[in-house]
């Protein structure tokens, strides 16, 4: 793949929680309009890495980052970079569904309203469109004023996806989006991701090998080799290759479930 097809280039990225180095020297390209999966045993730094991609780690005290993440040719860790604008371009869906304690409508309208959209008609259209894209519209169109927190777990997660879609991001990050919901809801979300791939670049962290194999185009495998060491990128490539013919023996052992 050529550099032009990449939405993001991660170059020699290391991140520290205070004195603790959580990930080290990670270099990885995120191709546009593809799904990239991050896999690896618990604690290897998948969440840390994915949260580096929209600078969510800035919210945590004492976090320090080395290296760079290039988004459309611009290093998002350059001084003066606008993180607020960044997060509108790079949306995020979390492990635990976390709708706001507001109505379904207000949940979806939250981002557009922050962006300054005030007209009711415009907001209505965005809400409907986003809920449709998140495959939730038919289930909730009758009760948009109900609290978003009253939906089932799977519905809540799709609401969170709709909420992200509503701000029209370019990249969507998923941190184990299905780990807290049932298989049927998981299936729905996987279908949804396949659908969204046409318009969005996506990164998904998952513990589920089948899921990574099913939904992703590229896969990166991270690993902490010794207790206390930072997580490092072991292997990265097309998902097919990684799952059928990995170069590194540690990758093979992990995806065949022999450790981690």
């Amino acid at each position, binding site marked *: 793949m050529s550099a032009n097809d990449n939405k993001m280039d991660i170059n020699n990225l290391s991140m520290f929680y205070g004195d603790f180095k959580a990930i080290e020297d990670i270099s990885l390209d995120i191709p546009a309009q593809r799904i990239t999966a991050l896999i690896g045993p618990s604690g290897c730094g998948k969440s840390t890495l994915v949260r580096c991609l929209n600078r969510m780690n800035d919210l945590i005290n004492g976090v320090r980052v080395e290296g760079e993440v290039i988004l459309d040719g611009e290093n998002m860790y350059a001084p003066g970079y606008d993180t607020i604008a960044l997060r509108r371009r790079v949306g995020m869906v979390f492990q635990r569904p976390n709708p706001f304690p*507001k109505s379904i409508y207000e949940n979806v309208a939250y*981002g557009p309203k922050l962006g300054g959209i005030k007209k009711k008609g415009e907001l209505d259209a965005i809400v409907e469109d986003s809920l449709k894209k998140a495959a939730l519209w038919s289930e909730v169109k009758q009760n948009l004023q109900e609290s978003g927190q009253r939906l089932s777990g799977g519905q809540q997660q799709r609401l969170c996806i709709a*909420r992200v879609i509503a701000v029209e991001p370019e990249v969507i990050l998923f941190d184990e989006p299905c780990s807290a919901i049932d298989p049927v809801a998981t299936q729905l979300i996987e279908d949804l991701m396949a659908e969204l791939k046409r318009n969005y670049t996506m990164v998904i962290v998952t513990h589920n090998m089948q899921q990574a194999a099913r939904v992703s185009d590229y896969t990166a495998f991270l690993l902490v080799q010794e207790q206390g060491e930072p997580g490092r990128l072991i292997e990265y490539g097309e998902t097919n290759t990684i799952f059928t013919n990995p170069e590194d023996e540690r990758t093979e052992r992990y995806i065949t479930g022999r450790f981690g």
Partner: protein
Amino acid sequence: MSEGPGISPAATMRAMVTGDRDRWVKLLMFCCASVSFLGVLLIFLFIFRESLPAITKVGIPKLFLSTDWRPASGHYGMLAFTFGTLFTTVAAMIIAAPLGIGAAVFIDQVAPEKVGRGVRRVIELLAGIPSVVIGWFALTLLVPFIRSVTGSSGFGMLAASLVLVVMSLPTITTLSAESLRAVPVELKEASAAMGATRWQSIYKILMPSAREGLIIAVVLGMGRAIGETMAVQMVIGNASQATASLLQPGSTLTTRIVQDMGEASGVFRSALFAQALMLLLLSVFLIISIRLISRERKHA
């Protein structure tokens, strides 16, 4: 050793002993609960009984709904003081609620952890200062200050309301900070991930999520303000008029009671108990509203 349903004698003994201990603990708890319940009930009954002479002799309208307080000539209307209590409390809340919630936001969300903890300690310390000290402080600094700025006597509703701000601030701040802290960090993260600034997250997500907790904090602060006596008495001027002017002297129910209870006897004394009854009704009202708020929260 038999495998059957039989339990060893030792185990049975142990069960009996612990069962016994449980029973004793239960009994003790029951006694404690009954004592406090009876205590409250007794206070209620006592105050009601003591205010009966005034209620029967003066009549409810003239006792509760009149502002005419001239005890020496047989006029015992308490409305001026009920109004004084509500007025100073509401005036205090208008300042203390935003201030307390703002301080809570600062402590919990804005300040670096150490600074936040420091501010919190200071505010908690404020709660520990006896009200007579705050009253004295207000008498020697606040009242002259109001006097020099406004040309009034300095004593009055404004001084009282400001004292109540100080008295209710710790309650409002600590409880608000607690309810803000109880908001899941996932919500804050979700908001930040949507491209909200810190202030937008606080204002649009954090505060609405903690809404009931914040309201309860303010209501409890009101309770504190309604009951405050000493510090208010020192600065309110203790006039018997009903006034909505911030610079005029007035009275609250509590200050009227302490001001006059030393000298009062007969119906006069009973009328003061009727004021105490009014105070109780106000706090019962507050407690009921807290109940309703928390119930609403459970339903949401």
